[in-house]
């Protein structure tokens, strides 16, 4: 019984899964020549620029890298705060 439980909980932590997750990130960095630190920096700068024009909640912003074949795409989902009505 314990075997099954270990199997269910352990499957995600098997080394093949770890290898795949690590490789996904490494390949994005290699292909785009962007380190994770640079990516974070870029996100912060993007947010700063956007905030100069419209009010947003930085916590709701979701910027991700998507992959289709060997091409990458930077996807930004940025919910805008309703503007305070001017009278």
């Amino acid at each position, binding site marked *: 019984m314990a*075997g*099954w439980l*270990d*199997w269910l909980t*352990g*499957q995600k932590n*098997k*080394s*093949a*899964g770890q*290898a*795949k997750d*690590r*490789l*996904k990130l*490494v*390949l994005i960095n*290699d*292909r785009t020549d962007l380190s994770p630190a640079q990516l974070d920096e870029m996100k912060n700068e993007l947010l700063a620029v956007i905030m100069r024009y419209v009010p947003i909640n930085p916590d709701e912003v979701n910027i991700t890298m998507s*992959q289709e*074949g*060997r091409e990458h795409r930077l996807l930004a989902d940025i919910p805008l705060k309703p503007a305070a009505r001017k009278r």
Partner: protein
Amino acid sequence: MAAKVLTITSGKGGVGKTTTTANLAVSLARDGKKVVCIDGDIGLRNLDVVLGLENRIVYDLVDVIEGRCRLRQAMIRDKRLPELYLIPAAQTRDKNAVSPSDMVRLTDDLRAEFDWVIIDSPAGIERGFRNAIAPADMAVVVTNPEVSAVRDADRIIGLIEAEEKGPARLIINRVNPAMVRRGEMLSAEDVIELLAIELIGIIPEDESVVISTNKGQPVALDGKSRAGEAYHNIARRLNGEKVPFLNLDEKEGLFQKLARMIKPGGN
């Protein structure tokens, strides 16, 4: 005849480029094709020993390029097969002795006479790789299901595309089905998803590769082993046949299956 020039490359060393070159050449020749393979690894020659032809070398690639012999004189015929030849690499020369345009000229001289010209690229992304890829009509990237090999394969795939020699095809070498089942080795599907290029072969880890290389007789010569069969299937795919991929789980007996059901986390 108008040969296709096929370059076998990998980025990382030790993943089985030379073994793959030798076995694809042997498989294609067994199917009646006229094949010449060229060892592109100047200074670290090895295709000769893997093919078991090391005792017959007189002239090499650099001798041809520098005009010390005719092309024919540097081509060693493999007597076990009707039409298989090797042009060995120079062992002692400076690797800058060969340029990409030299390789294009050399392969152009071979095209008329052969069905396949197969070039074994050295590891790395330097001059040797550029020499090997320059004349290619098709590029094959060999990798193992390991993080470093997959990462380097991705780099090389990018360079092949940059040289406008893409899309590269993928061979995943040394897959251990038992480890994949246990979740302790990347599966072929994982590697394909990561690298996003077309697969043309999966070679299972197989003791007979080491044994046959020890003897200088590539596994594909008799084609009885799993790896030999897998190489032969790649050769058929290269010739345009639709060949299904080997089911690597096939060999698992009833006992192993039962054992796995009872103890899924174990071996």
